[in-house]
């Protein structure tokens, strides 16, 4: 790698202060620091520094996302085939490679668009503000495609990414300063700006233009939402009044399938197993917060039990543990709620943040039929609430110190 180093040293003066290309220094710096850890040394204080930096941390999250990405690709390919054949009970493992290929063809463009657009915006802001690329978007850029429906048009992803990076992050000052999760901002933007492309029965499977007439690609969340309305349906089949809607549901989306992930849904969210592999990576490396993940799940369970206790219709009677494995709950708990910038920052705060977040997610899911999936809104809501939670945790610490003064 000596030759690369030589190239960098050769061109460095041009980008340095006073150089010809000074304006482009952030760009130059971004690329050189991608290839080489810079030669920055400590000055005083702690003369040695931990090996970890933000790039390494972000890389761990991306590695943790790979199982979800791969499974998401395959799943997208599978359901494209389902939509084309109109057969929802198509065997999952048949034609492995062609499904994976088809899925890659659906998912990779989304990834490319998300990264391309997002990094461009980041570079522009970097040039304006004179700083090199900050690493936050490396993760956001991967998360955005994973929380999109497979059928979302590419231009929409581009628009949403621009919105998320500019409004969600850069106007607050960039990585580390944002209030709400960037990836979820992108999704929320599409959710409210283009609801027809982000919810309903038709968006979850790619290739609907080729689909057989009358076929619906409804998801578990969509079906459950119908239970709260007048006309319950599961997998596109209307459930007659008085029939066992819950039974039909658990038949269509068995617990095993929900954990495995071979059900329709957003690209990365369906497989609980893939999410859990990611969780293990995040927890072993210490990048993700154990407190948030566990308390989020417990909050969801608590809310689920509360619904069971109220009871009354098929959705309220859905076993509490089911909530954890369908929809984006696992993905949200593991990858979204744990975003360190937007989550609560104190240890106690994280537990409260996670627990309330999990509860609210299920409450929105069950009680508000307009929003079949509540995880996104719950996490965004908790992002906004996190500073308040932290405030009270900090106040408690301050009070402890004041009390010590009084008793002393």
């Amino acid at each position, binding site marked *: *790698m000596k030759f*690369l*180093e030589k190239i*960098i040293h050769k061109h460095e003066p041009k980008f340095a202060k006073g150089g010809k290309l000074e304006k482009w220094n952030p760009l130059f710096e971004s690329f050189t*620091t*991608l*290839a*080489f*850890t*810079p*030669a*920055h*040394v*400590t*000055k*005083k*204080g*702690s*003369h*040695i*520094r*931990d*090996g*970890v*930096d*933000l*790039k*390494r*941390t972000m*890389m*761990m999250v991306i590695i943790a996302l790979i199982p979800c990405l791969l499974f998401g690709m395959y799943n997208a390919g599978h359901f494209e085939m389902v939509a084309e054949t109109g057969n929802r009970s198509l065997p999952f493992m048949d034609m492995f490679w062609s499904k994976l290929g088809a899925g890659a063809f659906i998912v990779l463009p989304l990834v490319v668009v998300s990264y391309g657009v997002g990094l461009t915006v980041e570079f522009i802001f970097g040039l304006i503000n004179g700083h*090199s690329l*900050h*690493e*936050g978007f490396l993760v956001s850029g991967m998360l955005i495609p994973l929380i999109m429906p497979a059928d979302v048009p590419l231009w929409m992803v581009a628009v949403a990414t621009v919105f998320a990076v500019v409004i969600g992050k850069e106007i607050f*000052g*960039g*990585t*580390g*300063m944002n209030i709400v999760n960037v990836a979820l901002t992108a999704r929320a933007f599409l959710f409210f700006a283009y609801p027809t492309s982000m919810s309903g029965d038709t968006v979850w499977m790619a290739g609907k233009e080729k689909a057989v007439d009358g076929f619906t690609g409804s998801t578990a969340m969509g079906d459950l939402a119908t239970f709260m309305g007048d006309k319950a349906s599961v997998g596109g089949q209307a459930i007659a009044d008085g029939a066992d809607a819950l039974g039909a549901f658990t038949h269509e989306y068995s617990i095993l399938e929900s954990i495995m992930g071979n059900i329709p849904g957003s690209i990365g969210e369906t497989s609980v197993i893939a999410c859990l592999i990611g969780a293990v990576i995040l927890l*072993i*490396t*210490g*990048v993700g*917060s154990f407190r948030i993940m566990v308390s989020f799940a417990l909050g969801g369970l608590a809310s689920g039990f509360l619904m069971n206790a109220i009871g009354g219709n098929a959705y309220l009677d859905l076993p509490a543990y089911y909530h954890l494995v369908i929809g984006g709950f696992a993905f949200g708990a593991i990858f979204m709620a744990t975003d*360190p*910038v937007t*989550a609560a*920052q*104190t*240890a106690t705060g*994280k537990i409260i943040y996670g627990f309330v977040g999990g509860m609210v997610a299920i409450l929105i899911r069950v009680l508000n039929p307009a929003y079949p999936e509540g995880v996104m809104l719950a996490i965004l809501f908790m992002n906004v609430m996190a500073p308040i939670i932290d405030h009270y945790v*900090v106040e408690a*610490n*301050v009070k*402890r*110190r004041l009390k*010590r*003064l009084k008793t*002393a």
Partner: protein
Amino acid sequence: MSKSIKLRKGLDIRLVGVAEKVKSEAAFPKTVSIKPTDFHQMIPKMVVKEGEAVKAGTILFHDKYKSSVKFASPASGIIKAIVRGAKRRILEVLIETDGQQLYLSESAINVDEMSAEQVKEILLSSGLWPFVRQRPLDIIADPENEPKAIFVSAFDSSPLAPDFDFVLHGKNHEFQAGLNVISKLTTGTVHLTMNGKIGSDATFKEAKGVQLNTISGKHPAGNVGTQIHHIDPINKGEFVWTLNAQDVALIGRFFLTGKFDMRRSIALTGSEIKSPQYFEILQGANVSNLLEGQITSDNVRVISGNVLTGDKIDQDGYLGFYHNQITVIPEGDHLKFVMTKGWMGPGFDKFSNSRTFPTWMLTKKKFRLDTNTNGEERAFVVTGELDKVFPFDILPMQLVKAAITDDIDGMEKLGIYEVAPEDFALCEYVCTSKIDIQDKIREGLDLIASECM
């Protein structure tokens, strides 16, 4: 009333180059230096001029604003130079030694019958006072204040730190005399806190007239700040004085012999030292003859003190006033390719408190770390990492943020009075965003000093 404390938080950074327990006599230094920059916020007023002859114990300068606080020459000889920097700030006072070590006085002083005021007067006029430091602010103690307690740590837990049990072994007499002196300074308790993990030397165990505590855990267990927080925390308006164990013995020696004899044991440590060991060396001595033939590579950083809180000095620089060790580590001023040594690399050469490098599984391996920051400065992103190495009931990240934003009220509430920059040394080490936390805390303390004290 002795307390024993167990800490769960902290971090021991395992570095190559622990000093072997062999003590050598170093060649007597040709020059020694007293650096006013070792004393934070102290502005010196010179008493001697260049070319003047001094003895060991002659006052060189005093604090311009607290003229009772005086600084003495550790060696006899001639003032070679008064080195000034920008705006004529005095950086160091160089003394060319004559090798004879003539002492200003040589008569023992009996403290038993003395009042606190008399003891204080002797410490101030002899130039020993700068050894006494105060919390809050971590500066030389203001002799006008009443400390509620005095804390001495009997061990140093920082990386490659000298072993006080070894250094002070057999110096019971001097150490006890020093304790007798400082216990005159307070109506409160003198706390001597020993390492709970291993039995301490008799020098400490058999110390009298003090409260003996033990603390066990990883670094910063040996930091006096940690001990104060767990034994007798500082509230607003209170003062605690602290001394280094070896300095206590030096004070004791002065009272026993009357000589301003500032020879101390230091550890020469670090991965770039051929044979790390202990040396007996004069306060402020030039280190070039210690390092001669000892440094094993070209591009090194010499640190007076430990790697977490020490000061960078030249290879012919001088030992800092409060330091008990010299550390030499490789300089890290070169690019590191991403796939081999950088952020995508396997990272078998990296030591990290996070578990993002596989080395977290190697619990015995010792590391040769350089001065590279291993990344660029960023905004705070990762949360909870500072808490893991900060065994205080204080929220480190919130306090640092308050310090960065000059939020005086916030700093007061969050506990700035209890901390010194050195308490945040590990936080600075582990910070993923590479923020100079000790600097920020120091700036916060300066603000508090000017606004609230």
